[in-house]
């Protein structure tokens, strides 16, 4: 449930606003919903990774991989799959730590 909520709300936030809104979404939802530090980090990490990888993959397919190959070359990555993985990791790590921070802040205020 939390996983789905993070995906939906952070997708909306990033569609209209800057990328870092997703950190606020993860923070707020984990503050509200998460039960354990591991799951706060894990769910937020997975949700953002899913979203970023999913959307990047969608963009990549409709573009038939033209730009991903070129950007991978610029970053000296061997192929576009790795580029998509890096995309997912960057988003996931920020999302995960934001979720964790949300959980710990609730604990601190409880």
């Amino acid at each position, binding site marked *: 449930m939390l996983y789905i909520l993070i995906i939906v709300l952070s997708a909306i936030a990033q569609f209209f606003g800057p990328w870092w809104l997703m950190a606020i979404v993860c923070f707020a939802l984990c503050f509200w919903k998460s039960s354990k530090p591991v799951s706060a980090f894990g769910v937020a990490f997975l949700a953002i990774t899913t979203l970023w990888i999913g959307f*990047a993959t969608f963009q990549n397919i409709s573009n038939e991989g*033209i*730009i991903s190959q070129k950007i991978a070359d610029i970053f000296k990555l061997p192929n576009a799959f790795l580029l998509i993985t890096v995309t997912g990791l960057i988003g996931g790590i920020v999302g995960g730590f*934001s979720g964790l921070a949300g959980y*710990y802040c609730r*604990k*601190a205020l409880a």
Partner: protein
Amino acid sequence: MKYLRALLSLAVVAGLLFVLNRPLGPAPALGPFFNPFSGFWQNAESHNKSAPSQLTLTGLKNEVIVKYDDNGVPHIFAQNDEDLYFAQGYVLAQDRLWQMDFYSRVAAGRLSEVMGPLALDFDKYNRRLQLPEGAEKIAEALMHDPTSKMIAESYAAGVNAYIDQLTYKDYAIEYKILGYKPEAWSPLKTALVEMVMRKDMNARSDDYMMSNALSKYGKATIDDVFPDYPVEESPVVPVGTKWDFVPVAVPKVPEMLQASVNTRLSIEAENPGIGSNNWAVHGSRTATGLPLLANDPHLGLSLPSIWYQMQLVSPSVNVYGVCVPGWPGIGIGFNKDIAWGMTNVGSDVFDFYQIKFKDASRKEYQYDGGWRPVTAKINEFKVKGSASILHDTVHYTHHGPIMYDEGQKPFFNDTPVGHALTWVGPVAQGNSLKALYLINRGKNYEDYRAILPFLASPAFNVVFASNQNDIAITSAGHLPLKWKEQGKFILDGSNPLHDWRAWIPVEQTPYVRNPQRGFVSSANQFPADLTYPYYLGWKFAPAERGIRINEMLASMQKATVDSLRLMQNDNFNVEARRILPDLLKILATDPSLKSNKGYEILAKWNLKNDPDQIGATIFERWVRELRLAIWEDDFPSQDPKKPMLLPTRDRTWAMLQKQPTAKWFDDNRTPNKVETANEIVITSFKATLDSLAAKHGPINPATWNWGIAKNTTIKHLVPLFSAFSRTGVYNGGGGNIVNATKEGHGPSWRMVVELDKSWPKAYGLYPGGQSGNPGSIFYDNMIDKWAKGELNELVFLKSKDEKHPKIVAETLLKK
């Protein structure tokens, strides 16, 4: 503990956001860049992308319709001219905003603001060339004429209407990687783009190297080895054409500068291949009975391409062609009645003056028997990654800037230190927007000639054809009225007679209309033979392309679009025809070459620079080596202290054929031996094969074929972004071949127009694509077709109501 955890985790998040939200050295901020909702994934343009059906834009007076054909070419239908140029700016910015912004930054000397210290010396050079001052002068002229003012302002408003809609996710990928934002457009920026052209076409000079040679050998020898007109030539204006004007007085040749030039500099390769072909065939020689016109401007091949195709329609105009991003109007193209094209004239419009300072303080310089003050200007530079503003002081004489003071290192090695520069770029004014406005609407020969006063710089050979069966060509532009050989060598900055004093009257620049031979053409060769009353320069592009074009056209009857297209792709090597038989005879005297594979291939070569010919590879590399082997000892082009110009290939071949015992063949670096012409030819041939083998392995088609060895590369405008470039474009041609495709230069637009009484047919393409986005299929979709020598049929709509099968999308721009 629980507070600590909370604070710690918040600190990690804050740290991550901080680090990911700012650029890391040369890398972009990773957070926004990788975020698929805003970063580079947004530049992954869908193959099924369709233009929006309507857009509302503030600034329009009426509705504008933009139709897109299947090649991504916009066809703009406006109800008035203000809206037309507004829409042109808007539509162009959609596809090429970053590129036009980039050009304007180059000319403004502001590239290091966004690229960092790497670009600083380039910026300093461009400021010293006075590109910004030249642009201000152009912009001022634009504002004085109500038509050009309207065009420049409407266009800028259109570009800005696009910029105003953008957020980070819409930015071109180059903005995202380099981490900066588009700046508002203005008429001044349009003028800056024009200055880039002036620089590319005109800003090179041999003066310094020629002066070094003069001081070593004296005038008589220089006259012999560097003559003012080639042995073989086929000038733009046919030999024998009568000049139907009374020339103004040409200044007398004053006393020449005798002092040897003693500043240091080193020199690199020769001028790059800025050249072009164009021609028009009279109806008497075509299948339709009406003219055909062809043009292929050769420029540095780049991505995004220098050109953008468009059709512009308003109640006053219906024109199709290509424009340079940032420069309103259609630059090369056609309308219902006429077609026109351009090549660079390449006359000598870039001269250095030796300056005699009064004393070591360098505050005054000698002029006309007295002393004049040197003025100083301080250029300021913001550099990416550095908080402080850098300064660069440039000293000026009335001739122009002293390009580099003693002790400074020139950006280009052919700029002499301590010399002042006069060149056409910052001084010629003109009004190119007005010229394009008029020619876009031109109906006949008189309309064509009427644009001449507005064309200043760069000077172009403007070819013309009309459906009234007129053909013509004019070397149009502001050309300084010079005494003979003025600027062949470094000029005397203290002698007023050495100054540029006037321009050749515009109506007296070389031109010809409907010549007897039934065609006109240009390929950057001499505009006219020595009967022309004015001195334009002692050296133009080698004659071979012009010779070949004129031969082919002279033998052509019932010419068609396809015969002209084939001509544009002609790979015949006129230079090889001229010199190879003699060279082969010499090689045949060496028994060790009897069964040499390279020699056999060359002997059987069909004299065409086709991509699958090994002979072309050997010949092209060899003639380069051979010329160096003959001359480098006498005229050391690579000498860091006193570099000299190598005599031309034309002069070299004439000497080999007519003066085989000339002293120049002896290599004076071998004091105990006197080499003959034959020895130089044979040893340079063997050396060429050795160096080719070192590079490409043993002779075989997979690595030695011309199309592969040449390796034509189309680079992105930022050389660092090699992933956005295309290498290994398989194509024939060469510098002195009609198909002038070299390693990094070549036909940047090919066009053939068949004039017609009712509606013309036209064909064309360029080595790139309409989109500037490396993530679009329209980024480079024309390259393969271009390499094969094919052309697209251009969609020239009669009106907005015409139904055309190639129109695939339509956008309504509402006010």
